[in-house]
């Protein structure tokens, strides 16, 4: 359980800082080119920074003045964090073991984590989904899906 007030204060401070950095950056970003062509861009960036600064300051003040309440990001934190971990692992793994193998691991693992009971059924469904996505993108649309790179060193 997290305190909403303190998270909102941290977020408010982050946006105030972002506004300050953005305001400061407007001129430095465009120093390399002529003044006439960059003035309007700088004004635009500065306007965004000023409005963000004002809105973030209002939000920050409201957060400081608010009474503390609890914020619940998920009713099932274990499943929630597991899905985040699995998604990151899937994308990271895909770069090394390729789309097919990574998907064949990700799908049953996610289904199991989400509470799907039958292992055999989950493997069949996973194979079906992987085949469908492969046929649709790689064969149908000729989009080259990520291929395994992990074993390249052994093969060459």
């Amino acid at each position, binding site marked *: 359980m997290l305190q909403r007030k303190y998270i909102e204060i941290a977020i408010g401070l982050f946006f105030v800082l972002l506004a300050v950095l953005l305001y400061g950056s407007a001129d430095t970003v*465009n120093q390399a080119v002529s003044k006439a062509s960059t003035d309007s861009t700088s004004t635009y960036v500065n306007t965004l920074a000023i409005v963000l600064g004002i809105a973030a300051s209002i939000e920050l003040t409201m957060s400081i003045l608010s009474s503390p309440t609890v914020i619940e990001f998920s009713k099932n934190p274990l499943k929630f964090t597991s899905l985040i971990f699995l998604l990151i692992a899937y994308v990271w793994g895909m770069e090394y073991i390729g789309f097919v193998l990574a998907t064949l691991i990700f799908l049953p693992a996610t289904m199991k984590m989400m509470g799907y009971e039958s292992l055999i059924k989950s493997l069949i469904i996973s194979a079906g989904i992987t085949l469908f996505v492969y046929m649709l993108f790689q064969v149908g649309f000729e989009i080259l899906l990520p291929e395994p790179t992990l074993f390249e060193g052994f093969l060459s």
Partner: protein
Amino acid sequence: MILLDALQAVMTVDALFAIFVGTVSGIIIGGMPGLTATMAVALLIPITFSFTPLIGLSIMGGVYAGAMYGGSIPAILLSTPGTPAAAATAIEGYPLTQQGKGGLALKVSVVASFVGGTFSVFVLLAIAPILADFALKFGPAEYFLLALMGLTGVVSVATGGLAKGIISGLIGLIIALIGTDPMTGMTRYDFGMVELYEGVSFMPALIGMFSITQMLALTSEKSISNSDVDLKSIKRDKMPKGIWPFIAFGTGVGTVVGIIPGEGATIAAFLSYNVAKAKSKLKHLFGKGNPEGIAAAEAGNNACVGGSLVPLLTLGVPGNTVSAALMGGLMIQGLIPGPELFTKHAVITYGFILSLFIANIVFLVIGLFFAPYFAKIAKIPTSILVAAISVFAIIGSYSINNSMFDVWLMLLFAFSGFFLDKLGFSLSAIILGMILGPIAENGFTQAMTISAGDSSIFFASTIAKILWAITIILLIQPLFTHYKDRRQRAKAMRAE
């Protein structure tokens, strides 16, 4: 002549099949609580990219129309609205199902959806070309104000409050700054990453914020619906007498609400429902199963489809997230929303509009004969749904540019979007900020260059003054509501 050419283009086997597949997919996705029309269109863009523009747009249009209707099926039969817009339908639909009148509720729902959807497409067909012609009078200052108005519309209805809504819109506008400066050609805020030279692609952001965030939210649910459908108990009923004025009213409200930036199907449905409740002679039946409520709500939310496409196709300003996703679909096909759509690409544009008529007919037929079977979709276990949609979201993000960087970007938007959403920030405003950012920046910088830094250019023309007036009204509205709520709360506290 152009309309005939467009009709010819739509009446091919390929196009009709595309509309059919799109509409059925839309009904399925709309019927799955937790999945939205925005998510469906966003996930379809990488797939439709490989098709001809008309086929791709017909699929996406079919999905939009189908999803708007599809949400009502589980709302009526399972008391589980498939889309937020179908929540009003559930209030009247499920009690009717419990009384053994589920068939009647489904019939009223599909007929009202059809009338609302079809009328709004007629309005789109009639006024879009005129408005597009009018858009030729817009200069850079007016385009900047138009983008500002579009963003203000979404910000004003943000549920987390006006300040958070404004910050959300600004996050989008700031993300849109990343990449090459349109005035100088210099790269900026790219952190030295080659992948960011052309800016942050909004498709991974859209897929991340509207697909993966939904999957993260679904981790809390074992099954989306706990109710079950008894297909044998659903009988065929006749349309009740006196229902048509409520359908007509919902249709009018939905079309107008759809055109206004920021307002959407949920607002249209509840607005129509509440007025129907006030006007009905059968007020006592509301909440206990009144078909009039279903008629008004369903006509209202489906009439938003055509209405929301008016500002998108004519001015290039998406009014809600589904039309923002559709804008992505248009742009990926090389079609820039605005007057050119009705001149240079007229056959495709009119073909797309005509395809929406066909999509309405498709869901009418499906709804009249097969609606109860679609309610079974809501029973798909979340375990399968979350795993499968995650794969589609990841591969969809990858396939747009064949880039793993886009996939990481999508995950970044998904995770940060989820937390921002929980804290009350508006994901719709972020994505619209990203889309409208280049329009706003180009308009602003060009206008300032033309006027040699004189900001009175933004107030010079009549169009500019009207756009300012609408923007201010859109901003004042939530402030007024907030003030009224506070006064009412204070009054209630004093009374206690």
